[in-house]
């Protein structure tokens, strides 16, 4: 960890420990906006860190690992990506939560400066005023009247808002210059990788703690080899996930980002499933109750591993690239990776 990393991590840890609890998580799932939590994040400036010139991008995105660790119910990921896009376009960023919407050709704005249509799976869409619209042909727009949409509230398996926004009347759409849809998609995938890494580590910590406290057969279940062996296997997955996530984050300014995102989204997504499964097994029935905090992480892991390309989609891109290079080039690719082709990856 660099100094900037740990400074950000400590600050966030404090804020999230103070503001994220069961009541808040359930309230957000029921449709409320976490005002205090968001304001606390906004005040530190961390929510808009990717828009500032003075903080390296890899440090700015690091806060998402902590978001995952605490299962914090805020659109920090989307806001951070929006910050980078606005910065690249040379545009100001208002201190508001942002959304991100990927659309295909059929949904692209017909008029140069307005948008009409339907957007799906918009994180925290019901609470938003601002959103970046990302078209498959590379164009991006800033929508500044998102609250004019009719909201059909939807939630994912974790209870996070993933709303359907219907714009039946035209709203203003301001073009962003200098964007690449592939990069925006990779950044969005990176946010899920980092959030998953944090949640995965958190699930292991909770499981170890529980094993030390829970007494059966006259001793803590941590003393049983059957439990130790499972948690050790889980720890291996956690190390791999953290390593893959960190490598992807540090590649945020590198031409190798496509390769690193593919590796990380595939590997961390796989670890998410394994660590969750072991976590639940160790917790026994109590971990399956709504009362226990475990499911707030596990359900998010299940949601995030599917968002922005699940494991097999990224594995296919990676596999196709190395197969096209040929068997004799495989080892060269492993030791000296090249950027893989993202051509036909589309949300």
């Amino acid at each position: 960890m660099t100094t900037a990393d740990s400074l950000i991590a400590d600050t966030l840890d404090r804020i999230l420990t103070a503001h994220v609890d069961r009541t808040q998580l359930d309230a957000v799932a029921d449709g409320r906006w976490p005002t205090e939590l968001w304001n606390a994040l906004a005040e530190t400036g961390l929510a808009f860190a990717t828009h500032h010139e003075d903080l390296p991008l890899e440090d700015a995105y690091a806060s998402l690992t902590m978001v995952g660790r605490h299962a914090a119910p805020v659109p920090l990921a989307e806001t951070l990506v929006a910050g980078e896009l606005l910065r690249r376009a040379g545009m100001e960023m208002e201190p508001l939560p942002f959304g991100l919407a990927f659309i295909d050709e059929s949904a692209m704005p017909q008029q140069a400066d307005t948008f009409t249509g339907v957007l799906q799976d918009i994180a925290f869409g019901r609470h938003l005023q601002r959103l970046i619209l990302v078209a498959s042909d590379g164009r991006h727009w800033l929508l500044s009247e998102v609250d004019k949409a009719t909201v059909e509230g939807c939630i994912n398996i974790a209870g996070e808002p993933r709303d359907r926004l219907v714009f039946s009347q035209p709203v203003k759409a301001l073009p962003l210059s200098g964007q690449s849809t592939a990069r925006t998609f990779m950044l969005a995938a990176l946010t899920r990788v980092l959030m998953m890494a944090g949640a995965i580590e958190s699930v292991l910590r909770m499981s170890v703690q529980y094993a030390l406290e829970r007494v059966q057969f006259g001793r803590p279940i941590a003393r049983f080899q059957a439990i130790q062996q499972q948690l050790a296997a889980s720890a291996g997955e956690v190390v791999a996930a953290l390593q893959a996530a960190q490598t992807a984050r540090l590649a945020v300014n590198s031409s190798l980002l496509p390769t690193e995102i593919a590796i990380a989204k595939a590997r961390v997504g796989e670890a998410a499933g394994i660590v969750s499964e072991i976590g639940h097994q160790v917790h026994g029935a109590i971990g399956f109750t709504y009362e226990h905090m475990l499911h707030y992480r596990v359900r998010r892991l299940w949601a995030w591993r599917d968002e922005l390309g699940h494991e097999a989609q990224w594995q296919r891109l990676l596999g196709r690239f190395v197969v096209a290079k040929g068997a004799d080039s495989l080892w060269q690719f492993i030791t000296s990776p090249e950027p893989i082709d993202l051509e036909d990856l589309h949300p």
Partner: protein
Amino acid sequence: MFPDLAWPSASLPAEAGLLRKEVRAFLQQVLPAGYRPNSDFGSGGDAAFSRQLGQQGWIGMTWPKKYGGHERSFFERYVVTEELLAAGAPVGHHWIADRQSGPLLLKFGTEKQRATYLPGIAAGEIFFSIGMSEPDSGSDLASIRSLARPVEAGYLLNGRKLWTSGADHNHYMIALVRTEPGSERHAGLSQVILDLKAEGLSVRPIRSMTGQYHFNEVVFEDVFIPQEQLVGKPGNGWHQVTSELGYERSGPERFLSTFRVLVELVGCASEAHSDRMLILIGRLVAHLMTLRRMSISVAAMLEAGNNPVIEAALVKELGNNFEKTIPELARLALEGRASGQMQATLEDALLHMPSFTIRGGTREILRGIIARSLGLR
């Protein structure tokens, strides 16, 4: 205290790239073209190849020059070892001496022992075995019974070692034996250098399920060990043995043993047009690249002078599972259409696979070490 599971990112330094090219050019020249076997350090050696490697300066790379070493970094050694394994090179003869016996002598050996053995190891001419397991002591290493009874000017050794790779052709063995009669468990153990041609020492090859002979039973009947063959302090054997685990368990040999299966599979996939195969290859590549980074991160810890025993256990645990996954999933993705080199490589991998999670510390022992670091025991 919960351990920090986020390891520092480490990458190989620029000078490693040049070295990698040299190694590849050398391997292209000395290895036969075409078919390459899985490179399994536990089997398949070639004394002439080891000598050539020594002449290149690629054995004992990190050791001081005065002992025949080359004073290069752990990263450079890493490049050489991974290139050898990926190419399917016959590394079996010198592997243990380079990885473990040499570093052990450097750390605990006497000046005379270093001068006697290290230059020969680095030249690729002296090969070592490890003598740890016994008929009644496998994972429970502290239960070993081979006894080296102190006598005038040395010890008299009786007992036996089991699963000793290469004892039939290697020159020496560093054995963990009991030097204090009546001692128990971790106390009273010492490491000694045994001449595998010594009087009273006999080697009985054991055929493995692969049909090959690469491990042995070694029997000691009143073998005299001169005092000067003791490594380190008497009674310090357990500590010395465990100090080597970072080297033993973190290297690329813990996840590359079936790499050639993946290479062959990529070759098949370019003809098969199977989506399932593409997804599988992508999955395996993502695992492999992550493991390699973990392993390089541990190499950086070694380079910094640390003793990453837990980190090495994590690399081996995850790496061995990965090595075992490749052939299992490859055969399914091939849907029974494997032939020629693909089938040969697959079968070779399957036959060796059971040993991966046993040798060098079983999966269960490794997980026990990891569990302890988590505070579970």
